[in-house]
Each structure stands twice: as structure tokens, then as C-alpha cells.
């Protein structure tokens, strides 16, 4: 029996805050490298986009992985945030913080409504219902205004003029903060209460967990995250033609669902990784193959195949693959040290 040596590096890496700071540093470095001309700017643009999806996906991770509630309405909630940003910033000329607060308020209201519905309807029916709701939202938004476009030329945040680079950092910092809040929540009584609710509603209730409170909370949080995603999208990409954009359609909701499943529904980091796989493969790899460029519908097929493979062989997603791999490496190392 070897005594467990204190390993400060490993202990540090297990701290969620350190993980988040490291992630932020790497992402910031990539942007800096791109400014210096070492990395193509389209790569960094794709990264920024992917991080926006990561914001949306980690919120969904809490809903699906922890609370066990299925929703296909993510895209609609993204739309709420995007339109709130457009009206507040572009039409009324108000600052970003106001847009943020409005997005928050709108998404909380919608989250509460859907949460109440989830108390009556469960499982696949809830998914269908949220899908319908998202379509209603999308069509409403399309009727209200078919194209939304934000001009950032006089939008400032904390006195800083927002351009491409600032928008990238805005996305990055938002993702980091939300990731921190979420991982704190997961590792607290709230996260455990949600898991209890997912596993057994009767046991959860017997132990004093109010289904109403935690279902509402799960829906509110995931809706807020999705709407913030929409807001960030408007800050980063800045325009969206609702009729032709796929952002507010079912395919986005499915991609997010896919990312959460592939990455590991109970791990925000796994989920982020899943988003990078799904959107990264799309924007960096598949978009360069002529066949997929001609038939974009087949891109979804790749995602589908990935989901099938993961669900069949690694139901815990990439988080599970990673854990198994590190475990395997560790035993190999230990054997090597013993020999």
C-alpha cells in the first residue's frame, strides 16, 4: 500500500473554479493568437459560436441530466433572448445590461409557465408540448419581424466599445460565469434534489423535496441559459433572418439534445465537449466536404449516428469515456511503477 502523496496540481485540477479559469485562459489565448495573425479568424469565429451553444447546452444539461425532464423547446427560448436583445439594443437604444435584464425577466416568466406545465405532463408528451411551444414562439417572432440585425457601433459595456473581439470575450466570460454558477448548484443540495427527483419522484417527496419548486427551477434555469445564448448570438453574429435561419428550428433543439447526450448528461464539461464535437465537426470538418455542402441535411445524420453509438456503448457520454480512459491510464501507470 503506497501512501497517497499530496499532489497539488491534481488537487487544483479537481477544483471546478480552476478548471473554468484554465478553460477561459485557453480560449482567450486562442483569440489573442488570432489577433496576432497566427490562427485564422474564421476558426476563432467558429469557437465563439460554439461557446454560445455551450451556454445553451449546459443549461439543458441541468434539465435533462439532473432533473430528467425532456424538452425540445430550446430553440424557441433562444429566439426570445435574440429578439429581446434586438428590441432593447437596436430599437430602443438601451445599454447591454438592460438587454440582459430584459432577457432574464422574459425567460424566467416563460420558464415558470413551462415548469408549471411539466407538473402535469411528463416524458415524451412534455417534449412534444415544448416542441409545439417553440414553434409557436418562432412563428410569432417571424411575424413580428422577419430579420433582426444589431449595429454595435455605439453599444458600450462598462465603457468599452463592443467589436468582434470584445463580443468574443463577452461570450467567453458569460460562459465561464454560468459554468461556475451551474457547477456550484450541481454540487449543492439543489443538484442532489434534482437527481433525486429524476430517480424517484415519490422518494424525493418523502424526503421533503417539493417537485413543483425543483421542476420550476430546472425549467427556469435552462430557459434563462437558452435565452442568454440568444442574446449572445445577437451580440456575436449580430443578424438573423428568422425565416431561413436554422437557429430557431427543431434542428437546434435536437443538436443541443445530441450534444448533451454525447457529452454526458450529468457533466457540464462533458456537455461543453459534446457541443464542440457536434458544432466543431460541422463547422470545421463537414463544411469542407463538398458532399455535405451540397446536402446539409446529411450533417444531422452524422450527429444521429454519433448519438446512437454513444447511447449504445457509453450511456454516460464522453464524460464516461474520459473517466474510463483516465482510470485505465492510472492502473497502467501503477502497474508500471510496481514492476
Amino acid at each position: 500500500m503506497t501512501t497517497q502523496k499530496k499532489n497539488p496540481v491534481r488537487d487544483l485540477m479537481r477544483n471546478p473554479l480552476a478548471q473554468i479559469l484554465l478553460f477561459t485562459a485557453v480560449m482567450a489565448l486562442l483569440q489573442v493568437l488570432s489577433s496576432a495573425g497566427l490562427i485564422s479568424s474564421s476558426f476563432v469565429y467558429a469557437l465563439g459560436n460554439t461557446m454560445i451553444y455551450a451556454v445553451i447546452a449546459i443549461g439543458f444539461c441541468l434539465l435533462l441530466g439532473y432533473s430528467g425532464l425532456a424538452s425540445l423547446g430550446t430553440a424557441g427560448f433562444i429566439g426570445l433572448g435574440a429578439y429581446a436583445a434586438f428590441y432593447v439594443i437596436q430599437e430602443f437604444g438601451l445599454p447591454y445590461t438592460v438587454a440582459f435584464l430584459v432577457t432574464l425577466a422574459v425567460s424566467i416568466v416563460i420558464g415558470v409557465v413551462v415548469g408549471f406545465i411539466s407538473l402535469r405532463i411528463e416524458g415524451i408528451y412534455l417534449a412534444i408540448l415544448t416542441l409545439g411551444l417553440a414553434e409557436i414562439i418562432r412563428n410569432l417572432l417571424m411575424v413580428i419581424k422577419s430579420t433582426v440585425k444589431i449595429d454595435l457601433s455605439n453599444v458600450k459595456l462598462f465603457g468599452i466599445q463592443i467589436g468582434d473581439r470584445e463580443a468574443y470575450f463577452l461570450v467567453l466570460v458569460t460562459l465561464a460565469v454560468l459554468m461556475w454558477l451551474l457547477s456550484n448548484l450541481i454540487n449543492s443540495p439543489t443538484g442532489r434534489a434534482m437527481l433525486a427527483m429524476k430517480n424517484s419522484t415519490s422518494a424525493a417527496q418523502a424526503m421533503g423535496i417539493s417537485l413543483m419548486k425543483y421542476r420550476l427551477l430546472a425549467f427556469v434555469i435552462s430557459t434563462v441559459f437558452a435565452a442568454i445564448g440568444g442574446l449572445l448570438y445577437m451580440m456575436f453574429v449580430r443578424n438573423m433572418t428568422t425565416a431561413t435561419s436554422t437557429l430557431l428550428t427543431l434542428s437546434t433543439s435536437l443538436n443541443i439534445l445530441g450534444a448533451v447526450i454525447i457529452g454526458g448528461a450529468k457533466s457540464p464539461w462533458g456537455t461543453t465537449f459534446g457541443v464542440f464535437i457536434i458544432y466543431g465537426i460541422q463547422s470545421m470538418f463537414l463544411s469542407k466536404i463538398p458532399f455535405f455542402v451540397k446536402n446539409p441535411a446529411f450533417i444531422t445524420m452524422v450527429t444521429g449516428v454519433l448519438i446512437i453509438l454513444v447511447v449504445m456503448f457509453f450511456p454516460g457520454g464522453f464524460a464516461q469515456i474520459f473517466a474510463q480512459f483516465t482510470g485505465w491510464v492510472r492502473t497502467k501507470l501503477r502497474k508500471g511503477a510496481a514492476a
Partner: protein
Amino acid sequence: MSSYSQVERLRRRVELYEELAVLENAEKYGKKARGARQKLENARAALPSTGLTLPEGVVLDVRGLCMYFGGVKAVDGLTFQVKKGEIFGLIGPNGAGKTTVFNCITQFYKPTAGTLHFENKSGQVVDLNREKVHDVILQGIVRTFQNVEVIRELSVLDNLLVAGHRQYTSNLVQQALHLPILRKEERAVRERAMKVLDFMGLTAYKDWYAFGLPYGVLKKIEIARTLMCEPQLIILDEPAAGLNDTETAELSRLIRRIREEYRCTILLVEHDMGLVMDICDTVCAISFGKLLAIGTPGQVQADKDVQAAYLGGDDGEV
């Protein structure tokens, strides 16, 4: 006006501060504890009186309890009293309505008719029918389930922390920011959980995921969870189902130990007559939702109606 759940929350805060004042030997917690105690007393004074009383020594009074599902009368006018500190067995043939009685007491079902009066852990008599299902635990009533409902995705220790859910007083913001108060609270609840695990002999399993653990251990986890929240009345739904003879013998010793250690009342449904006759102080036999007999195990065993219900009546057969 204040509600019982507010009072409970304040009480936990006071406990936590007092604990911290001793642990960290810090005067600021002593001050906070006194402030919280003052608030607690105010809230207690503002708590509306229920105006209910129970006879001396009675903890639970079930009167005229009825639970109908459409035309099915699962429980039909059942009346019995559970005395403080006793082990009370509810027996009856399959489908007699035993679990339904439990579900009514814990408010999983709202009874069609009847009253359920209970003396909670702070000595107040409450009408359980007015409690929400997730607030029943605050009164000191905890239960286990017939088909073990352990949270499989959590470790054994975390399962106990979930059971201690209402012991936490920190709000959502404090949790999302992982403020020191949450971390301290977490440590206090964890310590309590470790004590319970030790008491149950489950310490070795504390970091194991509940998924895949042997059935006997899962049953123990269920019982361990009931001990996390200062129970006044523990309701066990078929604790011996699926256990072998050795495990059953161990269980009966365990149930007695729980009663001694935690000074609580235990209400159980069980088919294992050996266990019931061995440990129960009072046995209540029901059939088709109606009371057959109530008394000491010997009395109930000798009762003609009970024998008929279990073995078939002697009307015309012989």
C-alpha cells in the same frame, strides 16, 4: 403569522450557528445564534395554534380514515391510535389497504374522509391532512418504500444528504455562489450522515454508488435515510420483504436499536409474522380496509376474525 416550515428553518439556523460557535470558537457565531434564536422565538409565538389535542401518550390518531378509488374502498372507516415510543405493526392479507393507510398518513394520497392528528417533534398537535406531501417530513414523519426507492445515481452518502434536504437553510443564491455558510452547513449535515452510516454499519459503502449494491444494503440505506431528520415517527413499508432469515433477525434487532437510540415511534407493515409478533408492542390487523382486531400480538393472533381473514373463514367449509 408564521408557518411551521419557517419555524423549522429558523430552528436549523440556530442549531447551525450554535454548532459553529463551538466548533470554531468564534463569538460572531454566538452572536448570530442569539439573534436567530430571538427570531425563532418570535416565529414560534406567531405560529397559529392548531387547537388540537391528543390523549396523553398518543402520537398518532387515525380516525374514520377512508380512501376510495372510484368504487374501490381501499380503506374504509379505519380508526386506531399509535402510542408514543411503541413499535406498531399493521398487518393484513394482500390488498387489505395497508400501504394505502401509509400513503394517507404521509399525504401521498389525500384521504377521502377521516382525520389524521399527529403530535409533531415540537410537541404541537397537527392535522396531517393540511400538510403538503413534501412538508410531512418537517413534522417528523419519514417513511421507506415497499419497492426500495434509493437514488441510484448518487453515492450512499449523498443519498443520506438528500434525505437531509430540509436540514439545509441556505437559499439558492448562497448555493449558486457556494458561500461559506453553505459549505459549513454541508459539513454539519455530512457529519450527521456519517454518524447515521456508522450506526447502520454502512460506513464501508459510503462512496459507493447505490446502483448495483445488494438488495439488503439498499434496504438499509432506505432505513438510514429515515434517521437523517430527527424522526418522530418512522413508517416502514415491508422492511423484511426479500430478506433472508439472518437478515430478518438482524433487522428486528436494528428496529429496536433505532427506537432506543432515536426515541421515536415506529409504524410498520409486514408480512413476516415472525418479525411482527417478535418486535411489535401493538398489532393492528385489517382486511378490505376495515379494522379486524387491535391489541398485543398474542391477542391479535388469537382473534377469530384475524384467523378467518388469513386462513379463510369456516363458513360452510369445514
